[in-house]
């Protein structure tokens, strides 16, 4: 199996505080891996380190087999940061934000072509916001803003999707909609690495979980993980039917 994410013995120090120490994480193609753990356990830092966004004191990180410092194929990666970043000082429409997802495939001064525009519309449709595409992102609900960020990552047509707490503060409907979009994504043998505070409707999709505590891997393995380890309500794995294609 092809390794997509390789994190070996990684230590991250932020502001003189050890956030991750000697953490290992390996994700293979087609897997859905969840990073679980209490607040401040280093979950977000771990996936940010995987993308070269956190300062790594020690250890090795590879994406698609290439050391992170030499990695240039950013169009293979779709990153969904925490939602707080969706709104900015100047209003932007849903379409404008999602269009930023194509930038890894565009050169400076190169205009968006028909394929760029088409893919952006498809990504907006995937998260069900077609009728809001000209609206300001900051006027949308929290769940809708989160879906805009998912669409932005999807617009790049990535092979690896990395999500930071996509379900935080999101209503049940949006969570379920999001689970369906993810299922579609995984069905085409693509890879997902995500931070979750709670498994929720995404539980059945997750192949494997890594539980962090105070910057160390506490436990790793297939779900279900006993509640006393994760410190969260027990989820059971459904044998749910998988939708076949992008549009079911």
């Amino acid at each position, binding site marked *: 199996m092809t390794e997509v994410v390789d994190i070996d013995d990684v230590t991250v120090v932020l502001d003189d505080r050890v956030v991750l120490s000697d953490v290992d994480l390996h994700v293979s193609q087609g897997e859905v891996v969840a990073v679980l753990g209490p607040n401040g356990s280093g979950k977000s830092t771990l996936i*940010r380190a995987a*993308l*070269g*966004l956190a300062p790594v004191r020690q250890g090795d990180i590879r994406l698609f087999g290439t050391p992170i410092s030499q990695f*240039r194929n*950013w*169009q293979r*990666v779709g*990153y969904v*940061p925490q939602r707080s*970043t*969706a709104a*900015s*000082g*100047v*209003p*932007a*429409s849903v*379409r*404008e*934000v999602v*269009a*930023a*997802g194509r*930038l*890894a495939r*565009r050169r*400076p*001064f190169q205009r*968006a072509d028909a394929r760029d525009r088409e893919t952006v519309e*498809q990504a907006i*449709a*995937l*998260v*069900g*916001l*077609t*009728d809001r595409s*000209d*609206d*300001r992102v900051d006027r949308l609900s929290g*769940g809708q803003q989160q*879906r805009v960020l998912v669409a*932005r990552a999807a617009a*790049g047509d990535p092979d690896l999707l*990395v999500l930071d707490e996509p379900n935080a503060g999101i209503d049940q*409907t*949006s969570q*379920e*909609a*999001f689970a*369906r*979009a993810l*299922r*579609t994504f995984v069905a085409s043998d693509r890879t997902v690495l995500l931070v979750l505070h709670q498994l929720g409707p995404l539980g059945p999709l997750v192949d494997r979980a890594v539980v962090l505590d105070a910057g160390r891997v506490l436990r790793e393995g297939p779900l279900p993980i006993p509640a006393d380890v994760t410190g969260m309500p027990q989820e059971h794995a459904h044998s749910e039917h998988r*939708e076949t294609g992008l*549009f*079911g």
Partner: protein
Amino acid sequence: MIVLADFMQRALLAALLTGLAAPAVGTYLVQRRLALMGDGIGHVALTGVALGLLTGWAPVWTAVVVATLGAVAIELLREHGRASADVALAMLFYGGIAGGVLLVGLAGISAATLTTYLFGSVTTVSVGDLVLIAALTVVVLVLCIGLRPQLFAVCQDEEFARAAGIPVRVYSMLIAAMAAVTVVVAMRTVGLLMVSALMVVPVATAQQLARGFRATFSLALLLGVAASLTGVTLSYYVDVAPGAAIVVVALFGFTLAWPAGSLLRRQRFAGQRAETGRRGHVAAEEHVHEHDAECGHPGVPHDDHVDYLHGGHLHARHGRHYDEH
């Protein structure tokens, strides 16, 4: 027909260029929540102007060099993002203005000359100034418009931009350098102490009326030009510093746009709620889930409602079941 004095023609041309460059860079600064960066650079640029006055080099050139160095320093401090950066910035600002006043004093130049740089002056734009201002404005506009997708991504979400392989640091420095150049471009018309207003106020006004980034950007440029030209003309007839006149005109525009903006938003909201007629129908098969904006089936707008693409046919919600459309 009124024949304008040569100095007035130059002042109006400078105002036009300033009105374009300031809001163009300003849009990115506001988006990054760095609205006051222009103000800080203005303070630092004063040292550059004083250096020019002292040495006899053109103050516009020395100001470009010093302001760019200052802007890069501000950006580096910001990048570190430590609590102390705030204090370091304040020191840089006041160091800049103190250095300027000190050098001007050493050169034995009057306070009146300094005032023309602080608040703008319509009578002192030379042909040489104008040529340089025009060249710098063209460079700033080409970069601001040509690199808009990249600059937008960097200002909107730095983390995401990094993960998309965009060299965030290069673009951040570019924005800082463009802000410095723009401060100098605007120095002769609005003046160093008010340049920030022309970078920020047209953008704030535009976002009352526009829904997207691109629309805000274009409208801000239009408003910036309108405010600069009106302000400079006003200062010619009333004999006040053009900087003050431009800023007052820009703020007046904002007070007009604000209520208009709230009205516009209310109307759009009402428009989204409007509902109309229905038609004959065929009921679709049983559903395991409800189609909604979030079910993963793509929505297709159809007159007054949304149909959902489901296995090659369209479903529309009707009461508790779905119709084939």
